């Protein structure tokens, strides 16, 4: 199942209704109890064998229904820790190494701020907005405030039919780490010049305007673009295993818009903006890669064969892309660079993200080649031609990479890997149909991100202003925004 399939929309219902109904039902048979245990191994629905052909439960629950299973729960706790590790310290170091020394702490502070801020929003209402069932007309676009606000009913019990073996609270934490890293990615574009207060306000608004709706649309059981979790009634039957649209496209396209509104850094194109520590960037890259296993293989919400496939394709695509990008540098500039290896790896991770649980290993290799080539071309050529100042290349890598990934997912998805593909792609015609759905999802995502960011940016500008003063920018944001220096002595 894809990340989409895990939406826990009816979980509390399932967990609380069943016991209530139980007294009237005969106890489960030994066969049913064994079937439920087998469902644990298969990451399947343990209640299946309790149902008659109409889906009515005919015996009482076995003792393990509603209980999270240790293997799957372990994988999800591990995955959640890994995805947090991607932001803190992974992304912080990756980005922090690329800025000038005088701004390193500002990047670090921004990542940490987002972690705390988004957690609070998620607990307050974000999880409910994104993964609450959402009824009525707005159901496909927006969850609801009531179901999980203040983590009501978010306990260690299993998350329901679609995530039967994982604690709902662990699932909520797992999804939280996605909600954290997405806005943190935006920072790359606007580094070294946006003031801290403005980032605070902008991100708060952006979560409500862009992220919560998009996560709901793509991953919720009632979502508008949720081809896997909402196969019956999704308006757009797109697939996105781990967040090509929700995470990378949304952050990347928002980033370029914010970057254009904000303007270039003082001295751009004239002064030397060399990364202050490629060693930090390298450590960050490696941590991103390692953490990304939680991001991608964790998005299966269970440690089954699809998770294993996602793990494998992530490995292949990333390694290939990390190889291809510096080879292009070698060919065109005479030397393969460390930043090239790092950029290639991150690009590979981005492009495989939507695809990892849908494509086979060979598909992953193709994706790796594309990931090492197209974002490279964006950063080395197109960026120069267009002249925008996307400081750390969030656009070139995440927006373009996420878009390429979304489309290639439709081209390369394989029903032998995952049976939930809406168009049951068995030939070119099916793939064309799936690609069309993917293009629609790409269009909606870009539109929402661009318009949402324009709105949030101008509100922020009106409230607190966007840019640091010239003096602060020259002195460096570490001292002006945080009263500290990164290194001393």
């Amino acid at each position, binding site marked *: 199942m894809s990340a989409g399939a895990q939406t826990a929309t009816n979980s509390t219902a399932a967990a609380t209704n069943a016991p209530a109904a139980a007294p009237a039902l005969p106890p489960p048979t030994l066969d049913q109890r064994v079937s439920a245990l087998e469902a644990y191994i298969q990451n399947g629905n343990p209640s299946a064998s309790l149902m008659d052909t109409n889906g009515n439960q005919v015996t009482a629950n076995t003792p393990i229904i509603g209980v999270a299973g240790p293997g799957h729960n372990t994988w999800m706790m591990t995955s959640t820790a890994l995805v947090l590790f991607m932001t803190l310290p992974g992304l912080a170091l990756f980005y922090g190494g690329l800025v000038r020394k005088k701004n390193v702490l500002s990047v670090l502070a921004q990542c940490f701020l987002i972690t705390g801020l988004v957690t609070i929003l998620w607990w307050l209402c974000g999880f409910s907005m994104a993964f609450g069932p959402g009824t009525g007309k707005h159901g496909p676009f927006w969850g609801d405030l009531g179901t999980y606000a203040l983590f009501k009913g978010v306990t260690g019990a299993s998350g329901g039919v679609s995530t039967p073996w994982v604690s709902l609270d662990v699932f909520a934490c797992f999804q939280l780490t996605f909600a954290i890293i997405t806005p943190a990615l935006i920072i790359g574009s606007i580094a070294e010049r946006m003031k801290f207060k403005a980032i605070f306000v902008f991100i708060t608004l952006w979560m409500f305007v862009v992220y919560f709706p998009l996560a709901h649309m793509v991953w919720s059981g009632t979502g508008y673009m949720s081809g896997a979790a909402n196969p019956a009634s999704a308006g757009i039957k797109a697939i996105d295993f781990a967040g090509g649209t929700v995470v990378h496209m949304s952050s990347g396209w928002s980033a370029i818009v914010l970057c254009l509104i904000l303007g270039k850094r003082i*001295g751009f194109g*004239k*002064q*030397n903006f060399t990364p202050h520590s490629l060693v930090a960037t390298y450590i960050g890259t490696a941590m991103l890669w390692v953490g990304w296993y939680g991001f991608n293989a964790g998005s299966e919400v269970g440690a089954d064969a699809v998770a294993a496939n996602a793990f494998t394709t992530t490995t292949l695509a990333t390694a290939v892309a990390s190889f291809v990008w510096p080879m292009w540098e070698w060919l065109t500039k005479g030397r393969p660079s460390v930043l090239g290896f790092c950029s290639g790896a991150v690009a590979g991770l981005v492009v495989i993200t939507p695809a990892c649980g849908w494509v086979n290993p060979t598909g992953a290799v193709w994706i790796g080649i594309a990931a090492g080539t197209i974002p490279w071309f964006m950063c080395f050529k197109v960026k120069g031609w267009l002249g925008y100042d996307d400081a750390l290349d969030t656009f070139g890598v995440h927006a373009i990479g996420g878009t390429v990934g979304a489309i290639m997912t439709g081209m390369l998805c394989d029903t032998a890997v995952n049976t939930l593909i809406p168009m049951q792609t068995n030939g070119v015609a099916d793939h064309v149909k799936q690609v069309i759905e993917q293009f629609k999802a790409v269009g909606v995502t870009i539109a929402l991100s661009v318009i949402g960011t324009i709105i949030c940016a101008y509100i922020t500008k009106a409230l607190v202003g966007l840019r640091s003063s010239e003096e602060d920018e*020259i002195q460096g944001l570490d*001292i002006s925004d945080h*009263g*500290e*220096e990164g290194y001393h002595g």
Partner: protein
Amino acid sequence: MKKIEAIIKPFKLEEVKDALSEIGIEGMTVSEVKGFGRQKGHTEIYRGSEYTVDFLPKIKIELVVADAQTDAAVGAIIKSAKTGKIGDGKVFVSSVEQAVRIRTEEKGESAV
């Protein structure tokens, strides 16, 4: 020959270098220094301990030039390094008795 030492703001280095190149100066030596002066520093707080940082990052440029070039060089530096705000720095000129190019052992003005 004269030695010119200029203490400037770090982000002005490229401009000063270009200005000197323009008037034909092709050698100089640069180092990172900290300057204490009228420009006020800032306060840093680490878990409640407040430190006033009044040594600010500056760049020192040293160059030895032929006597005849001195005024032009000083002028170029002043023009290119000036922002008009406190902390722009200083230029000092002193006399050098001998200069040798290590590679060729050339001496005097032809060495610089």
